[in-house]
């Protein structure tokens, strides 16, 4: 079984069923299948061959979904990069994965034209999805089969040295998670899944492929709607969504500012899953109490392992006072703590969901050490405790503080910079402490935001700026983030 067969099988079984709807219109399985074929022919005609990478730089649209399927059909590896990534970060990604082609949506083409998309023999060419489809192409080559361990897609995530790193996921990796998740949630053809996460965030793998597996429909939430919790709540109702999957922050936002619990439970909702960060207990229990007929799942797993543990929140949890567990291993994964005998340890994962490696690095072998610290509760469920390094989560998005610091170091008015995150959940804020460059006037928050917007995804932009004469240092001269956090949380706001 290969990942692209999921859509093909459902297209044969239920050609007229709704496959994908991007809120401006939908396509049936037959239409999506034909569109994927047309894109496969076009990619082939554009010179893409098996093993090549195809970067898809776009918002949320049906073309992008068809392009991912098209790439797999000709044996290529797709690399989704959401429109929230600026051109400079797209270039970092293309220099890492060396794609045969970058396909952009209309907005991306416009951005590439007004900014400076690099041209040269060594740089990939960029084409619009519409233009790609319009170019004459002979029929698509036969469906590529390859092996289950071939890389299907690469998801770029924040890297501590300032360069994003590409997590390479094979067909086997993705299918292990998708087939488990569909079975666990009792997914069926009548289901209507919402896709909230961007395509380069691994949460979207469930929305798309679990839907394709069972012939259900997936409803793409446009990025602009992320600013409107009320609209998301409305969408649950008007689209009769049956399965919702997002980061907890989005649900908390809908709960506090989107009137999620004001009326009756969403009429069709039967499964609500979340992952990516801890769900504050009080809010999770409010959901549990308000929606007795909706199954709630707390899933855990970094991009490198896919979802590898699961905890279902039931009525038994209503009296809970300890944090929600991340649960027990799932999707065929082995999960344990290193060291095995301590009260706490590093969550370590082996099994079919673990990535093949980082793109361009030596292949990953053996168990994957997540960098997350865990412990077991009295019932043997795994609990998430924290991180052992400088990777933080801001509203579910993975952020390496070093990547932001590297971007800030390039600001004309900044000499040195240190970044910390203060607060958690919806209140998490990225604070930058900077020492201005000698002879430069101190930077302003707006200029720093502008600078970040050119280099980093929006989820990594600086929320607060502190101009300092010096940064706290550890005895061996490194920036002392703990001391900095203490200084920023006790000092008056500045």
């Amino acid at each position, binding site marked *: 079984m290969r990942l692209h067969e999921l859509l093909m099988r459902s297209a044969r079984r239920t050609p007229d069923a709704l496959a994908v709807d991007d809120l401006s219109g939908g396509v049936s399985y037959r239409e999506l299948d034909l569109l994927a074929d047309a894109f496969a022919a076009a990619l082939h005609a554009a010179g893409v061959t098996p093993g090549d990478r195809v970067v898809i730089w776009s918002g949320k649209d049906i073309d992008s979904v068809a392009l991912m399927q098209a790439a797999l059909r000709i044996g290529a590896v797709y690399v989704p990069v959401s429109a929230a990534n600026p051109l400079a970060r797209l270039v970092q990604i293309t220099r890492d994965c060396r794609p045969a082609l970058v396909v952009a949506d209309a907005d991306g083409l416009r951005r590439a034209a007004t900014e400076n998309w690099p041209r040269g023999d060594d740089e990939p060419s960029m084409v619009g999805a519409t233009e790609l489809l319009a170019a004459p192409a002979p029929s698509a080559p036969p469906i590529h089969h390859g092996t289950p361990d071939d890389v299907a897609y690469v998801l770029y995530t924040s890297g501590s040295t300032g360069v994003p790193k590409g997590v390479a996921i094979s067909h086997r990796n993705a299918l292990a998670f998708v087939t488990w998740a569909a079975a666990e949630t009792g997914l069926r053809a009548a289901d209507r899944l919402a896709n909230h996460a961007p395509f380069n965030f691994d949460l979207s793998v469930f929305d798309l492929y679990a839907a394709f597996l069972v012939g259900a429909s997936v409803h793409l939430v446009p990025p*602009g709607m992320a600013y409107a919790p009320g609209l998301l709540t409305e969408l649950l109702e008007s689209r009769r969504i049956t399965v919702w999957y997002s980061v907890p922050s989005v649900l908390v936002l809908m709960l506090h500012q989107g009137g999620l619990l004001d009326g009756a439970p969403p009429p069709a909702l039967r499964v609500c899953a979340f992952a990516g960060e801890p769900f504050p207990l009080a809010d999770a229990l409010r959901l549990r109490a308000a929606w007795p007929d909706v199954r709630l799942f707390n899933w855990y797993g970094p991009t490198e392992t896919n979802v590898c543990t699961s905890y279902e929140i039931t009525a038994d949890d209503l009296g809970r006072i300890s944090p929600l567990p991340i649960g027990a291993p799932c999707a065929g994964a082995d999960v344990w703590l290193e060291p095995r005998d301590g009260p706490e340890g590093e969550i370590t994962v082996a099994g079919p969901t673990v990535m093949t490696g980082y793109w361009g690095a030596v292949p990953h072998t053996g168990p994957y050490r997540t960098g997350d610290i865990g412990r077991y509760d009295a019932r043997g469920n795994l609990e998430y405790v924290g991180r052992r390094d400088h990777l933080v989560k801001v509203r579910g998005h993975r952020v390496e503080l070093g990547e932001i610091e590297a971007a800030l170091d390039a600001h004309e008015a900044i000499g040195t910079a240190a970044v910390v995150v203060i607060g958690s959940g919806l209140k998490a804020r990225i604070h930058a402490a900077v020492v201005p460059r000698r002879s430069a006037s101190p930077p302003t928050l707006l200029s720093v935001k502008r600078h970040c917007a050119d280099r980093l995804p929006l989820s990594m932009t600086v929320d607060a700026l502190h101009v300092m004469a010096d940064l706290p240092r550890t005895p061996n001269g490194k920036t002392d983030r703990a001391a900095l956090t203490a200084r920023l949380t006790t000092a008056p706001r500045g």
Partner: protein
Amino acid sequence: MSDIERADLLEKLIGFVRDDLLNGQAGAELTPTTPLLEWGVLDSIKTARLLAFIRDDIGVRVPPKKMVGDHFKDLEHVTDLVLELQQPVG
């Protein structure tokens, strides 16, 4: 709606974004066409704060279907949205 009223409204919104959302750290760069969404001045939480300000201090409630990116692109657009919603029905 006179030009003066529009200018007043824009001034209020700029003041809020500068003093509240940017902690007074905007410098002179914040203008009516500063790209708020593109530069991450507005994210989901800050948009909610801006909506609360528009509701409480300007007296205009923005309905969910107007809460799409285009209306929050920059302060010119926000001003237009508020003025449009202020128009008496009839």
